[in-house]
């Protein structure tokens, strides 16, 4: 994972069926790239947290604005101090090097 080339967007979303496809649908429809997704339910709430890994091109602003328009997206921010290793670990899992 290259911090200069990639950005992690952090989302808080209502957790019900269909939210994930709304978000991935947005990326397909607007031809934004999406390199990885991590998602988990927040304890004792009706919300989930999502981390989206995307290439840092000049469309980040537009991606964030479009995400904010989605009904079930409650918060959007660019993750400044996320541990970028989380996606590296996923990458290793994908490549089969445990």
């Amino acid at each position, binding site marked *: 994972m290259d911090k200069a080339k990639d950005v992690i967007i952090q989302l808080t979303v*209502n957790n019900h*069926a*269909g939210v994930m*496809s*709304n978000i991935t*649908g947005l990326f*397909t*429809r607007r031809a934004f790239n999406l390199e990885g997704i991590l998602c988990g339910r927040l304890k004792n709430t*009706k919300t989930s947290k999502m981390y989206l890994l995307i290439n840092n091109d000049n469309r980040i*602003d*537009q991606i964030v*604005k*479009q995400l*904010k*328009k*989605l*009904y079930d997206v*409650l918060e959007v921010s660019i993750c400044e101090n996320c541990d970028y290793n989380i996606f590296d670990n996923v990458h290793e899992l994908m490549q089969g090097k445990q």
Partner: protein
Amino acid sequence: MRYSGAEIIIKLLEEQGVDKIAGIPGGANLPMYSVLAKSNKIQHILVRHEQAAGFIAQGIARTTGKAAVCFATSGPGVTNLLTAIADAKLDSVPVVAITGQIPSSLVGTDAFQEVDTCGLAIPITKHHFFVSSAKELVHILPEAFRVAEEGRPGPVIIDIPKDVQLEEIEIANWSLEDVAATIVDVEKNIPTASLEDVDKIAQMINESRKPLLYIGGGILQSNSHKLLYDFAKKNTIPVASTLMGLGCFPSNDSLFLGMLGMHGAPYTNLVLNETDLLIAFGVRFDDRATGKIAEFCPKASIIHVDIDPAELDKNKSTNFSVAADIRMVLDELILLIDKNPREEWMAEIEAIKKANPFPISQNNDCWHPLNLIRKIGALVDPDTIITTDVGQHQMWVAQSYPFQQPRTLLTSGGLGTMGFGLPAAIGAALANPEKKVICISGDGSILMNIQELATLADLKLNVTVIILNNGVLGMVRQLQELFFQQTYIATRFITNPDFASMAKCFGIKGYDLKNQGNLEAMLEKILSTSEPCVINIPIDFRENVMPTVPPGAGNHQMIGGKKHG
């Protein structure tokens, strides 16, 4: 009291003030229909194709500004509706589509007439709701209307399985139910402009020498046409409009430059080249308006105000932009701008106009489509609602019809959907019984929803359908002529129905003005009646929409700007 899901739906629709619903029943929405049968507040309009139900809802919504409703059953009912929904999305029209779904227990089994309505809805709606219990309806129904109308409007689909429509629940107190359900919701704030923002805009305008307003659908959505007029007049700012903005500024005013872009007048696009400050209000820098974006308004600083933050700096970076309701901004801004006659700028525009006039202005042939449309405009009241289909006739209307009031032009701008005109006209007539509605169509487009003549015959509305009949898919033929070396394929119809007789078969008056000696007198006579009718007017298939900006070119590089004259 106990209520079924279907009863809750109809009751809440009545509470929203919905008085007309267009649709077609089927297995999966029958419970709703059987409750609708008992409603004395809602009139159901049985269409002949679900796409028309969507466009009727659009006709109501586009003329009233309020969300309108359509019904469809699961499966093919839904897929038929989708074009009208996508159309509403691109033109920001508030529509609430309520679709029946197969029973929950069967969802996911490829049951008869099952499609993934919500999956299909994702890219073409503002939002969609899948209802999994009757209880949820109390919250979702009003919420759908709020989403459809709030901020930048758009279509919403509510998909409701049949068992949810039949499920009975106890509701003691309606208002309590709704409040309880709403708490889950996080309020999304509507963007507003600060006083400093407005100050900054005023300063930029006051300091500019050659400002130009570029207006669009946001003006009518925010109901700010009157303010806009006073604003433009006070500081003497010329106005160019997108297709969606036509009607928001009186077309006969000296400041009005008409439509800009691909089929704008030569002078309009050339004035864009000279402006030093582009004031973009309620627009989205669509490619049909801007041409090659890098060459759009090369000498100008750009101010952009739109309710949708995502439109700011999306296609063109601006010098100053604010996400806000245009009306709120204009309210303050009008106080802060100088009174300024801008004599030099006006003289420069006058000179550009003189040197680059609209190409047809000296042609007097009354059969020329531009003259026909002008004539129609001269014959009817200024509050007449015009709908169009898509093609050359649409652009001729945009170029030459004398629009004076907002919401008098209903046209499929974003999606460019042939078949829009007739059902949208029916919707407009339903919502505006005191007004005349004219659908100006082409012989290609009209056949895409021709079955709705039957609906029109049912309702006997004051709708006149005028077919500018060139025997071809004119706009596509034009593209073949100009940009594909006259390789004509699939644009000339081998046969065409006799439209006047066809109208009569549907039980509607039909007129054919072919070989009509006194065209204008005949038009006047027909337009003075208020029954539904179809008028076929043959036009020369070689007429093209001019000027035209070639694909990928800058707006100033139009062709056909000087030809006819």
